[in-house]
């Protein structure tokens, strides 16, 4: 039984590390902040969680802590991605390529305010 857990833990480490590496590759390859955030999300969801799963399998005594940590990681990860992308959009960081944007229609007035702001300062 012990060795089965060890094997599963090793598998989780390999898969988790692979996804983390892919996430970093994604950050390097993606063209703008919004697409990069997709790549980093993968590190949080797969990389860190799978490493914690491996830790739980090797040290079942700390399973409680591990599960709570996984829960908080899964809870907080999307919130950071959302707030970073939302903040990037609000301060007007452009997209790499022109694209369909359903949000533009509802934030037109908001954009106008943003554009007025630097003019006032200048």
């Amino acid at each position, binding site marked *: 039984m012990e060795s089965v857990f060890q094997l599963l833990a090793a598998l989780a480490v390999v898969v988790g590390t692979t996804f983390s590496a892919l996430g970093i590759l*994604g950050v390097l390859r993606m063209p703008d902040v919004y697409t990069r955030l997709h790549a980093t999300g993968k590190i949080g969801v797969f990389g860190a969680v799978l490493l914690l799963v491996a830790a739980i399998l090797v040290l079942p005594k700390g399973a409680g*802590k591990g599960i709570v940590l996984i829960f908080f990681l899964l809870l907080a990860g999307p919130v950071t991605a959302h707030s970073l992308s939302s903040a990037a959009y609000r301060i007007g960081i452009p997209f790499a390529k022109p694209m369909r*944007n359903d949000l533009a229609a509802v934030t037109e007035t908001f954009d106008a305010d943003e554009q007025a702001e630097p003019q006032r300062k200048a």
Partner: protein
Amino acid sequence: MQPWMVLVLWLVYLALSANFELRNVVLGLLIAGGITALVHPAPYRIEPQRVPAAVWAAVRYVFVVAKDVLEGGLQVARLTLDPKLPIHPAIIAIPSGTESEMATALSAHAITLSPGAMVMEIGDHGAMYTHTLDVTVPDEVYFEMQARRRDLLMEIASEP
């Protein structure tokens, strides 16, 4: 006093400390009670006969979200490894299909959790403005996934 709140906090404390000595168990209960008394959480009515159905819906919800997360993860991995980097980003509006703020927030959480989609803003009536990596996926796919999530969330919250 919210007995449910005390129970949940107590269990979280025990899970975190992983120590079931009587001293620690009692200490956890005191801490849980103290926090509940200080924070005054808003009362949430729980109908005991609805609990089994809600728990079952919650379990199904976890599996539905896990499946979306896995599919999204593999999709983004494929996109990242493709030498041509065939991404077609766009921001699409996904209606949450509910006026409940909690259900909308949890839906947005599930969407953002799955790689390849990320909610950027929440507009009026629960419109979720989602940045997606692959706009070639038809909107209906996202709408269907959202409808499934919404139904389960409503079942969990015991709302019709």
